[in-house]
């Protein structure tokens, strides 16, 4: 992996600017990748920064899925533990650190959902909760990409949005959504596919700009 192969301290990854050269302390924000390298290598400062940077998003996601604060905290803790254990498996070519970490958090949460007791919350609630919110703890590039999807997600037909949210956040398969909503499997597959392709085209438009 590119990041790991350099084997550098996240602190060392920060170039020294002219102000630091003359002894002036400058607060710099390390990249997510640098913090992950530090976390994996046991750097306590990097680990603390990593947890501080992502804890609200990780807990927000686990709570959205589990709807129980104690369970959400357990899932969030487990997610950071797995990130620490498996930091070396992160491949920057396959996505952002935030996406990687939140995927871990999603999977941990889904595995904590007792299927027999699972009462899915209204998935549109997630979208509604997200209508407008500040992003104080996000770096600019990440805000732009995910924010690009907010409006097209809201514009999707309700049944497409529901199928997509059940699949993305709750890990429901098309078959499970079909059984849950009482609609044909083929219809659910079409809804997921249509929604995903619309959102992909939105991201591609932004890349082409």
């Amino acid at each position, binding site marked *: 992996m590119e990041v790991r192969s350099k084997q550098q301290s996240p602190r060392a990854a920060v170039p020294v600017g002219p102000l630091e050269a003359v002894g002036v302390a400058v607060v710099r924000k390390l990249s997510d990748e640098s913090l992950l390298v530090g976390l994996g290598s046991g750097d306590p400062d990097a680990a603390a920064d990593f947890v501080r940077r992502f804890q609200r998003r990780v807990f927000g996601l686990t*709570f959205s899925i589990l709807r129980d604060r104690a369970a959400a905290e357990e899932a969030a803790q487990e997610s950071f533990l797995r990130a620490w254990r498996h930091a070396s498996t992160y491949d920057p070519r396959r996505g952002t650190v935030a996406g990687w970490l*939140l995927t871990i958090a999603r999977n941990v949460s889904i595995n904590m959902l007792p299927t027999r007791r699972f009462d899915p919350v209204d998935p549109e609630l997630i979208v509604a909760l997200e209508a407008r919110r500040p992003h104080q703890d996000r770096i600019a590039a990440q805000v732009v990409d995910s924010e690009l999807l*907010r409006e097209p997600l809201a514009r999707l037909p309700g049944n497409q949005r529901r199928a997509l949210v059940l699949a993305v956040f709750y890990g429901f398969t098309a078959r499970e959504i079909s059984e849950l909503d009482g609609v044909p499997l083929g219809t659910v597959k079409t809804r997921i596919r249509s929604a995903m392709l619309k959102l992909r085209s939105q991201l591609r438009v932004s890349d082409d700009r």
Partner: protein
Amino acid sequence: MTAEMGCEQVRELAPELALGIAEGEERDAALRHLDGCGGCRQLVSELSSVGDELLQLAPVHDPPAGFESRVLAGLTEPPRRRSIQPLTRRWQWLAIAAAAVVLAATLSAGSVLLATAGDRRLAASYQAVLSQGQGAYFVAAPLQGTRGRVGTVFGYQGQPSWVMVTLQSSIREEGRFQVQVVTRDGRYLSLGDAVLGGAKGTWGGQLPVDLSAVHELRFMGSDGRPTLTATFATANPWD
């Protein structure tokens, strides 16, 4: 094995592959296609990015007070082995021996009830094994991977209850898993880590609950999803 898939079929399934919700043989056939098709791989990769970005739209919440400290405390400790002690080498051999004896008994389905001398001996042997650990019963369940059965899980109800996994020798690649028990009342309990495959053909450990409370044993891969599972259909097959 299902028929091979073409680009058109794989592109239809691409969103589900990207979101990790494609299932069974359909998924396996699509993954085989992706191995040799850069165009379809690119599509799945782009759709995976959509999934990643969508997760980032989840609401942000402040975690409970002290969360950061608790996480960091956990990161400084050695990997957890919560609520379970791995079986010692001696216990592993005892478990394998017990599994062999009891498997022989249970394979003769209904034999305990039949009034034949051989079957009575088997029943007596079974009872003798159970009495060694104040046990009530012994069960076996198939360990299932994504492409079918890969081994067997033996479960012993006693003081303590424990499980023993034996893997088919055809599993050549070693893998590290987190082991999880799903209880019949819906709880999830961690059994720590396990290495299975290659030269590591067995794994076993003590259960933190009675075997009768165990619904499923799961071996989770690095992505946090169950890779191998074994389900105990009933609490006590002899009841």
